[in-house]
C-alpha cells in the first residue's frame, strides 16, 4: 500500500525552529536524513520532497477561459504544506511509525493518508 506522509508548518513552529541554536537545527536535519536513509534502505521510499517557502506560491484560477495568477496562499490558512514522503509500506501502522519520526510531529503537524489504488478485487 502506498501512503503519503504530509508535513505541515505554521508560524509558531517556524518561530521555534528559527529560535533554536544552530547545533539543534543541525540535529533536526540529521533526523530527516536518517529517516530518508532508512526508508531508502528498506525499499519503502518512493519519493520525498521539501516544498519551497510558501511566499513563492502562486495561486492559479481560471475564469471564463482566462488564467489568473495571484501571489501567495490563502491568507486565512494557518498551516501550510511544507513537504512530503511518498512511501510504500505493508500497513498503515508501519507508515505511522515513520511519520512519528518526523520532527514536526512534535508540533502535531504531520498526517498520514492512504493513496487510492487503481486496483480492485472482485466481490
Amino acid at each position, binding site marked *: 500500500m502506498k501512503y503519503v506522509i504530509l508535513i505541515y508548518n505554521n508560524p509558531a513552529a517556524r518561530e521555534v525552529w528559527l529560535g533554536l541554536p544552530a547545533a539543534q537545527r543541525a540535529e533536526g536535519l540529521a533526523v530527516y536524513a536518517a529517516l530518508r536513509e532508512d526508508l531508502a534502505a528498506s525499499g519503502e521510499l518512493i519519493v520525498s520532497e521539501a516544498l519551497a517557502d510558501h511566499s513563492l506560491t502562486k495561486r492559479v484560477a481560471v475564469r471564463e477561459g482566462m488564467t489568473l495568477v495571484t501571489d501567495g496562499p490563502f491568507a486565512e490558512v494557518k498551516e501550510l504544506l511544507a513537504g512530503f514522503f511518498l512511501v510504500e509500506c505493508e500497513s498503515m501502522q508501519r507508515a505511522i511509525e515513520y511519520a512519528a519520526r518526523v520532527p514536526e510531529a512534535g508540533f502535531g503537524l504531520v498526517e498520514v493518508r492512504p493513496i487510492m489504488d487503481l*486496483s480492485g478485487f472482485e*466481490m
Partner: protein
Amino acid sequence: MSTGQVEDLLRQLAPQVLGPLVRKYGGFDTCEDAVQEALLAAALQWPTEGVPANPKGWLITVASRRRTELWRNESARRRRETADAALAPAEVEPTPDVDDTLNLFLMCCHASLTSVSQVALTLRAVGGLSTAEIARAFLVPEATVAQRISRAKQRIRASGAEFRMPPEAERAARIQAVLEVLYLIFNEGYTASSGSTLHRVELTTEAIRLTRQLREQLPADGEVAGLLALMLLTDARRPARTRPDGALVPLAEQDRRKWDARAIAEGVSLITDTLGSAPIGPYQLQAAIAAVHAEAARADDTDWPQILALYRLLSSLAPGPMVTLNRIVAVAMVDGPRTGLHQLAAAEADPALAGHHRVDAVRAHLLELAGDPEAARACYQLAARRTLNIPEQRYLEARAEQLAPRD
C-alpha cells in the same frame, strides 16, 4: 525468433544463468547485475542476429565476463593501493546438473527484506524482468525499483545469507515466504484495472510461470501445488471480471462462458490430486473454494454448503479478517442473510475489521438480500467512502445508486 519469443526465452533462462554464476563466484549482488546486463545484450542482439546454438552457454559466458569486469572495477575502487585486482578468477563453466532456482527464490525472499523489496528482487533475479518492466508493472518510478533492488542486495550481503539450502528446520518457513511473495505478485496483476495494462508485463502470467518453476523444484509440496491451482482458477475468471470500461463485475454476475476452461481444468485437476496426497494447507483450501466456484455453470448452481465447510476449515487453519468475511458471506448463502448479518455484527469486535470498508460492503450486500434497500444503500455509500480502490469505489457507488428510491 520474434522479440516476444526471445523475451520469453530470456526470462526462462535468467535463473539458470544466475545460479551457476553465484555458485562459482559468490557475490550474489554483482552476479545479478552481470546477468541483467547479459540479458539486455541478448534482448538487443538475438532478434536481429539470431539465437545462438547454445543460448544458455552464451548468456553464462557474457555474464561471466561482465561479472569479472564489475568485480575488477569494484576491487580497484576498494583496494586501489594493492595490486590484487589481477586475481580475478577465470571464466565460469556451465554447471550442467545443478539447478539453483530454489536457492535463488529463497535468497530473493530473504527475511531481512521488506515485502516490496522481495517482490522486486524475485521478479528481476528469478523472473528475468528488467527494472523498467517491474516499475511499469507496479506503477512506481524506475529509480524507485532500481534503488529497491540495489539496497535489497546490500541487505542480503550484510545479513551474511548463504547461497545454499537452509537447514531442514528453517526450510518450511523460508518456502512459505516465497509463496507469499508469489501470491503478492499475482494479486498485484489480478487486481490491476484493465485501463492501465498497456505496455505492462502481465504480472499474473509471470506469477504463474514462477510458481510453475517453483513446483518443478518442489513437486511433492502440497502448498506449492495449492498456490498454483489457486492462481490458475482465479486467473481463469479474468476475462469476465471487468467490463471494457474497467468496471468490476462481481462473481455472481460474471458471464461464465468467458472463463478460461483450460486453466480451470488444469487447476481443478491439480487441486484434486493434491488434496488427496499432501498435508492440507491454506492455499490448497483457497484453491478448493475457487474450484467449487469454477464448477458451477451458473451462480445459482454454486455449492454453498461445500464452500462454507471449506471456509470453516480455513478459519481454523489460517484465521484472518478476510477469511472471516468470506465465511460470513457463505453463511448468508446457506442459512440466510439475517444469520449472516448477525455474525457480521459479532465479527466487528475484531479490531482488524472495525471500520474496514469490506465490512460495510458485505453488510450492504446482506441487507440487500434481506430486502432492506434503504439500509443497504447507506452501507454501500459508507463502503464507497472508505475504500482505497478506485474501481471498487465506482462499483460500490453504482450499487448504492441502483438502490436509490425512484419516484
